[in-house]
């Protein structure tokens, strides 16, 4: 009883503090110039649950005859890009769709394993749109926009309906209805899945809708094309410059609007769970043309990846979060056992039950192994830093299925996770049915990205940004199974509405010639950049420099950040930039398929993104979600937010080469939810 009262009292003071903090933030920000107001962000008025309906009721639309006269460029064919391109074409717009792979079906959304959230409440376990909204806001550590997140939760159900209608073979129960599972950060089962290949199936659904529009001639598909700049005419995005990756030819494309859905920039770390060609170049290009880069330091480190095993390694493989439904995470209780494991003298299965430390269950009894990703990652790092790591490098923990196999039988476990177990065995050469898996955190997703308003429009008119590429809905930490939800929400159900509010004013604008000086200049700048890179002819390969950048990022801008480390990182990154621009060597020529040139162009941008990440992390003197500043933590090692100072979105405005960007703040006002300290213990 006494404890309960105490908790209530603490909660009360916290609430009072938060309310006070919100007021101070507001006061501090209203009198400054570089502030984005809710009106600037075009957040509709009214109660939370009515905002999106209100918006749709009052927005402008484009009539069918005019849609035919409007061209929209969509860059990227992941969940966001493909669903947007297909949906816009179905509405009647002419769509030009670009991707760097040989086929739109290969975008990296395809690798998402676990599932997609929706507030269907098919399980009758108390789910609702509000609860999905609330879990997402809380999971993001109160650093996301309420209105956007509510809309996301609101449209989530339509996504599932849409995908089933497209023939996505979601997992089903024996009665023929859809099955669900649980993911981190929630206490309901709201995740829909298709084996361990949910991203693949959803992407193939969007790809099939896209293919149908390509066949109809409504989408013109450009595969093996890479966007290298956006063309801005009289303040509006009017086209792109792209390189044909097969011929090396630089080409110009006009669009009445440009939509960017090019994913995240996690590969700044070199080693990540992203695909090798995933990059942040388009984000950086539009940033340099005036779009704000928001919260660049918010990067997600996924707790369950296969650990690093050698210096030649090219990528880290994710083991789906869904494994945490049935797998239990542990390290040995005794240091001598850990040492024996590190030396290869013992195997996980040799350690008796009483000597295992199920540290997530110990520290977070309420959520156990299903705490959010940032919490699970830091807890693994804490144990490994303390010397309890279980592989040769001491940088791994166990994910153990022996309990699940006993409880459910090997067949059920194989049915749920068979493909993941197979993948693990092929890579590590160890059977996870017999010996626990080894996992370690790795860079996985970037919550930060291009700033967009409620309409998903960037600070450049006519330039829209969707999916992981924008900063949008996940705050400082994304919950599992929410990336697929957001990508498809943006592409199927948000952008096709909001873009019309912009395009309705563009119906009088004729198709522009790509001979205009703005196209000419943009193309010339791209060609000069390529020529400069080709001319360096130094002694270092692109990858060798990228690896160097990755190490700096992981050491200083990774799971634990400090002011000292970030300052060091900034210096090191600037040194790497110099090294790159004086020592890189690109063989071959620019007018040919040249993979080293492609990589060099991307690395040049990763270096600048890395710098921006470090700068943003240095500015944000608090810990929230995936951003952990070691100076700001509770005695238990949990994140300590500084709501009075940092309850805002950091929007960085480009000022030119080697000049510090300007920080513009969008204060986050929590009108409808109370900001709490995240608690996954009770």
């Amino acid at each position: 009883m006494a404890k309960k009262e105490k908790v209530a009292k603490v909660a009360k003071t916290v609430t009072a503090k938060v309310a006070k903090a919100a007021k101070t933030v507001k006061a501090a920000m209203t009198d400054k110039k570089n502030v984005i107001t809710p009106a600037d962000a075009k957040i509709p008025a009214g109660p939370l649950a009515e905002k999106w309906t209100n918006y749709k009721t009052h927005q402008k639309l484009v009539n069918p005859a005019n849609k035919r006269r409007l061209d929209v460029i969509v860059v990227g064919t992941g969940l966001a890009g493909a669903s947007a391109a297909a949906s816009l074409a179905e509405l009647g717009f002419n769509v030009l769709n670009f991707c760097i792979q040989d086929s739109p079906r290969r975008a990296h959304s395809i690798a998402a394993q676990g599932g997609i959230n929706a507030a269907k409440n098919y399980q009758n376990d108390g789910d609702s749109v509000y609860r999905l909204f609330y879990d997402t806001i809380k999971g993001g550590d109160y650093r996301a926009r309420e209105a956007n997140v509510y809309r996301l939760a609101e449209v989530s159900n339509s996504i599932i309906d849409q995908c089933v209608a497209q023939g996505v073979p979601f997992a089903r129960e024996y009665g023929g209805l859809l099955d669900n599972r649980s993911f981190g950060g929630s206490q309901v089962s709201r995740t829909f899945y298709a084996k361990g290949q949910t991203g693949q199936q959803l992407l193939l659904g969007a790809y099939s809708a896209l293919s149908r529009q390509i066949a109809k001639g409504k989408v013109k598909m450009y595969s093996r094309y890479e966007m290298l700049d956006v063309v801005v005419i009289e303040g509006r995005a009017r086209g792109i410059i792209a390189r044909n990756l097969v011929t090396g030819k630089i080409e110009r494309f006009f669009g009445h609007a440009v939509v960017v859905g090019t994913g995240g920039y996690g590969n700044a770390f070199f080693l990540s769970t992203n695909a090798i060609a995933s990059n942040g170049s388009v984000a950086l290009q539009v940033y340099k043309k005036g779009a704000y880069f928001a919260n660049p330091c918010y990067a997600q480190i996924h707790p369950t990846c296969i650990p690093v095993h050698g210096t030649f390694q090219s990528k880290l493989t994710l083991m789906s979060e869904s494994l945490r439904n049935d797998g239990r995470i542990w390290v040995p209780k005794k240091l001598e056992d850990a040492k024996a494991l590190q030396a290869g003298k013992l195997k996980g299965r040799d350690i008796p039950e009483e000597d295992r430390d199920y540290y997530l269950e110990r520290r977070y009894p309420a959520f156990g192994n299903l705490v959010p990703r940032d919490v699970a990652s830091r807890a693994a790092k804490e144990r490994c830093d303390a010397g309890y790591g279980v592989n040769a490098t001491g940088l791994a923990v166990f994910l153990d299925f022996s309990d699940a196999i006993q409880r459910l039988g090997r067949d059920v476990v194989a049915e749920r996770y068979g493909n993941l177990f197979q993948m693990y065995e092929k890579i590590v050469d160890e059977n996870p049915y017999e010996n626990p898996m080894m996992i370690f955190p790795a860079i996985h997703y970037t919550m930060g990205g291009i700033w967009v308003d409620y309409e998903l429009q960037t600070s450049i008119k006519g330039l829209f940004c969707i999916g992981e590429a924008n900063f949008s809905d996940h705050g400082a930490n994304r919950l599992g199974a929410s990336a697929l939800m957001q990508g498809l929400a943006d592409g199927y159900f948000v952008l096709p509405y909001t873009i019309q509010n912009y395009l309705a004013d563009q119906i009088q604008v004729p198709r522009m010639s790509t001979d205009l000086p703005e196209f000419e200049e943009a193309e010339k700048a791209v060609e000069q950049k390529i020529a400069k890179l080709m001319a360096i002819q130094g002694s270092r390969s692109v990858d060798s420099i990228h690896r160097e950048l990755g190490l700096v990022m992981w050491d200083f801008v990774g799971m634990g950040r400090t002011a000292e480390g970030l300052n060091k990182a900034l210096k090191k990154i600037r040194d790497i930039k110099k090294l790159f621009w004086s020592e890189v060597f690109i063989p071959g020529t620019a007018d040919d398929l040249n993979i080293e040139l492609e990589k060099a162009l991307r690395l040049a941008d990763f270096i600048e993104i890395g710098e921006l990440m470090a700068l943003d992390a240095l500015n944000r003197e608090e810990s929230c979600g995936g951003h952990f500043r070691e100076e700001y933590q509770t005695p238990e090692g949990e994140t300590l937010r500084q709501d009075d100072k940092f309850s805002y979105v950091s929007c960085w405005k480009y000022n030119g080469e080697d000049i510090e960007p300007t920080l513009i703040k969008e204060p986050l006002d929590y009108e409808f939810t109370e900001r709490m300290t995240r608690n996954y213990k009770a």
Partner: protein
Amino acid sequence: MDKTINITLRVWRQAGPKAKGGFQTYKLENVSTDSSFLEMLDILNEKLISERKEPVAFDHDCREGICGMCSLYINGHPHGPDTSITTCQLHMRKFKDGEVITVEPWRSAAFPVIKDLIVDRRAYDKIIQAGGFISVNTGGVPDANSIPIPKAKADEAMDAASCIGCGACAAACKNGSAMLFVAAKVSQLALLPQGRVEAAKRAKAMVAKMDELGFGNCTNTGACAAECPKNVSLSNIARLNREFICAKFQD
């Protein structure tokens, strides 16, 4: 743990679609058996770059066996000697010390070589565009649970849908047939009530497109299913044939 091997690589090099290609031989020493096949090629490329030579061009992206971007005919097998995996999941522990490894691009009339080991697989996209979809627009669809689907059917559809469109089936086929690829999509959609509506039309359209694009005929040798990295079953081809014949009868 840290075992290494020495290998000799015979790699197909071809400067462009119309250039004459040929094998080049490279020796690599102390390759860790824990590295993946593509990491081994990365090491080769780093070596070539350090010798100021052009690296070998090959397709790859996710490096976890799902995007379908990687290809490669290794020692006479699409995706190499191991089963049920793509090239990116193949590890060097599958090779012996001193082994000679031959690496070629997909060999299929419908997949012309672009450069070195990279081929053009857009023919597969064109087959999907011919009918590999359910004709629904965004919005206005019924609730996801309004049509129950027997679990066994849904699971079977999922197995067919696991195709990654890599092209190994056509590359493995002595006739260069894309039947397994077509059958996987036709089966997935024919098994689901949502896809039944257009099943006959779909089967005809996709088969016609496959023939038009220069893929060969199926003679049931089964090489496709044996080499498929995702174990897409040969029974899908039987289902495609049934769908196709029924569709023809309806004409």
